[in-house]
């Protein structure tokens, strides 16, 4: 079976299973809505859901962008200077050790109900995987390449930009893949804690009013968003890392 078709088959099987359980188990709709009911909600509340999806997608993308930029900057700075490395690495570890979900209420307090608190949330959980993976990649350049570059009288900056940086791209790619997978979590948790828009907000509202079908609809959209993001990041990395066969 071709790789491209396999996810769709898996999805079809999952939906069939869901349909069978919902119809045969006799569970009430507020516990487990039937697939056709959720589909109906998706159709009926299309505009409403689309509007909130847009908010969440913006948060995820901005979070991913800022988090990746900050993480990469941190990795490069640590590579440039051992002093910076000594000062930044505790912060790096702290950003990972700190339970980001626990400070979500604080972030909402500081950055408000709007998008910024969710973006900060996403940045906080993206920062570590990107910075750690990229820094590791920058440090572990093939020593032979560095020696060769040295005999070619390359400047320190030249070695960083033209040897270490491209050589670290596969490692950066692994970090970015993890980041793309966790970015939606940051945005959604941020929305749960306090917001006036977004899929997380839709889910909290629907949950409070026991409109489980609407919650499922939001959940399905969120899954689709996360999967699309993952696929796009993978596609981009594959283009960028055409030369590294094991990074696919």
């Amino acid at each position, binding site marked *: 079976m071709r790789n491209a078709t396999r996810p769709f088959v898996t999805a079809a099987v999952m939906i069939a299973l869901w349909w069978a359980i919902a119809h045969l188990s006799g569970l009430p709709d507020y516990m487990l809505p039937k697939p056709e009911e959720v589909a109906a909600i998706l159709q009926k509340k299309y505009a409403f859901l689309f509007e909130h999806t847009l908010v969440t997608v913006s948060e995820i993308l901005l979070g991913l962008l800022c988090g990746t930029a900050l993480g990469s900057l941190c990795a490069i700075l640590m590579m440039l200077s051992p002093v910076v490395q000594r000062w930044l690495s505790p912060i790096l570890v702290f950003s990972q050790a700190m339970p980001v979900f626990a400070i979500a209420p604080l972030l909402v307090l500081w950055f408000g109900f709007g998008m910024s608190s969710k973006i900060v949330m996403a940045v906080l959980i993206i920062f570590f995987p990107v910075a750690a993976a990229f820094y590791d990649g920058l440090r572990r350049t093939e020593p*032979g*390449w560095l*020696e060769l570059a*040295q*005999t070619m009288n390359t*400047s320190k900056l030249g070695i960083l930009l033209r040897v270490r940086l491209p050589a670290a791209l596969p490692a950066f790619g692994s970090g970015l893949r993890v980041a793309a997978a966790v970015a939606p979590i940051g945005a959604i948790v941020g929305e749960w804690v306090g917001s006036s828009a977004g899929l997380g907000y839709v889910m909290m509202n629907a949950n409070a009013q026991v409109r489980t079908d609407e919650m499922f609809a939001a959940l399905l959209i969120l899954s689709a968003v996360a999967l699309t993001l993952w696929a796009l990041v993978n596609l981009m990395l594959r283009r960028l890392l055409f*030369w*590294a066969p094991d990074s696919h």
Partner: protein
Amino acid sequence: MLNTIFASRPEESSVRENRCDGPMSDCPAIYIRDLKLAYGGHVIFEGLDLDIEAGRFTTLLGTSGVGKSSLLKIVAGLQAPTGGTIAASDGKPISHRIAYMGQQDLLFPWLSVVENVMLGSRLRGDRRDPDRAMHMLEQVGLADRRDALPSQLSGGMRQRTAIARTLYESRPIVLMDEPFSALDTFTRSKVQELAAETLAERTVLLITHDPLEACRLGHRLFVLSGSPAKLSPPISVPGCPPRSPEDLGLLETQAELMGTLLDAHTAAD
């Protein structure tokens, strides 16, 4: 054992007679004097003197771990010696005049073949010269693979690309650290000949653990052995490099060297 070999070799004066002189270039000779390398209390070598003749191949043969790679890195300026001096015969600094070939081809996997040849220009931020790079690729027979990625090449092609990259640098001094050890016997033989032809008239120091390679390529040949390592007197092989692997004189020298190295290896164990 060493003595028997060296006793059977001509003296320095007679070595000079079969110099295989071509037109001499302005490549400098390199004089290594009283060189010492030690890690902590462990002396790798000391009191090492070596003349690397101008415009010729000097091969240095030794078993692994004897310190020959370190010696090459010291000459390349990649590693600092514990003591001693390295100077060019013209008195100018060496560090901007060397090209280095390592044990691996060290091609950058994200650059095409022709971009790899021009690596030096790219790394220094100079203007690249694709015409010259193509000329080098023609010399090593890879002009039609100019846009291939290193991962699409065989081991021999990769090492030929590395030779083209070395040629592109047009440095008078070339330092090679077992550059052909990863190749199969037949590919190695061809690439050795290619290196001998294309790098002729440059000052070359080639380090190897392969007696055949040393005998084929070296105008002058030295053995580095023992702990702390000592350098043998120069050994000459009849004929001009690249010598044919079937050459009887070469085979005889190779057999003797093999014996010497085996003894050194056994003693070290």
